[in-house]
């Protein structure tokens, strides 16, 4: 700390300043700090064997629905509904799926042919 801070030995006085700081007395950590840090460590410590692996979303959904047996029931019910729907198509005809004008007004008029018979 005896040099002027001119440009030539700028690094020297700055190094001296940094060295003074580095060499300054530093108190050790208190016993209280060590105890607090260790208490934090214990509080945050994962269970023995490590933290449980994260559960994928699809497994969470299956679990939320009640497990694989419940999912199986849902699939069976959906399949049954589909088959029943197909059976309905045999009655009305597959064209009902894409024809907007399936309803035939003339068949309503001659329903069972009673209207003609009655004159």
């Amino acid at each position: 700390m005896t040099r002027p801070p001119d440009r030539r030995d700028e690094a020297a006085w700055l190094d001296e300043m940094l060295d003074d700081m580095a060499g300054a007395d530093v108190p050790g950590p208190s016993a209280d700090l060590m105890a607090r840090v260790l208490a934090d460590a214990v509080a945050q410590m994962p269970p023995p064997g490590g933290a449980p692996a994260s559960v994928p979303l699809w497994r969470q959904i299956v679990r939320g629905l009640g497990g694989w047996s419940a999912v199986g029931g849902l699939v069976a019910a959906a399949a049954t509904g589909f088959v029943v729907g197909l059976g309905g198509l045999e009655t009305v005809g597959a064209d009902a799926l894409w024809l907007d004008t399936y309803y035939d007004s003339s068949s309503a008029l001659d329903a069972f042919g009673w209207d003609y018979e009655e004159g």
Partner: protein
Amino acid sequence: MPLDTSPDTDDAALLARYGRGDAAAARSLTVRLVPRVHAQAYRMLGDTAEAEDVAQDAMMRLWKIAPDWREGEAQVSTWLFRVVANLCTDRLRKRRGGNVPLEDVAEPADPTPSVEVNLQTRARQDALRAALADLPERQRIAVAMRHFDGASNPEIAAALSISTEAVESLTARGKRALAHALKGQADALGYEG
């Protein structure tokens, strides 16, 4: 506080053990790392209570990241050094309110020699801390690791994920910026002929 019971085990391996629920590893890491972390925080802040808060905060972050820590990606000590440096910088900037110029850092005024020396030492350290806090993060960490932690260029390079060659340039830029920030006060702080 018990001593480090695993002196031959490196920090990353201990952290992995802690991540698997090993309490003995937590004790060893605490004994090993807290003094270093606290010393770094104290040098940067100059206040025991604040240094303890920073040390506890930094260690808490380490405990939380332990289960996700990937061995070989970074050294625990350099990761902690960076965390502490950033926590200290936040505190220094808050302390200064972001607007107090370096010239306003207290200067020695007491005529009693021993008190004067103490105050001057304090003023120098405060001025240096304030100037360090204003450096860009990488420059600040490079300068602090080099001068306060005695870190080698490869260690600094690893901490900052840069090449060893880039460390020299980074440190030089940091010191030039420090010199520029402090040159107006060097005389008043006793760095004169």
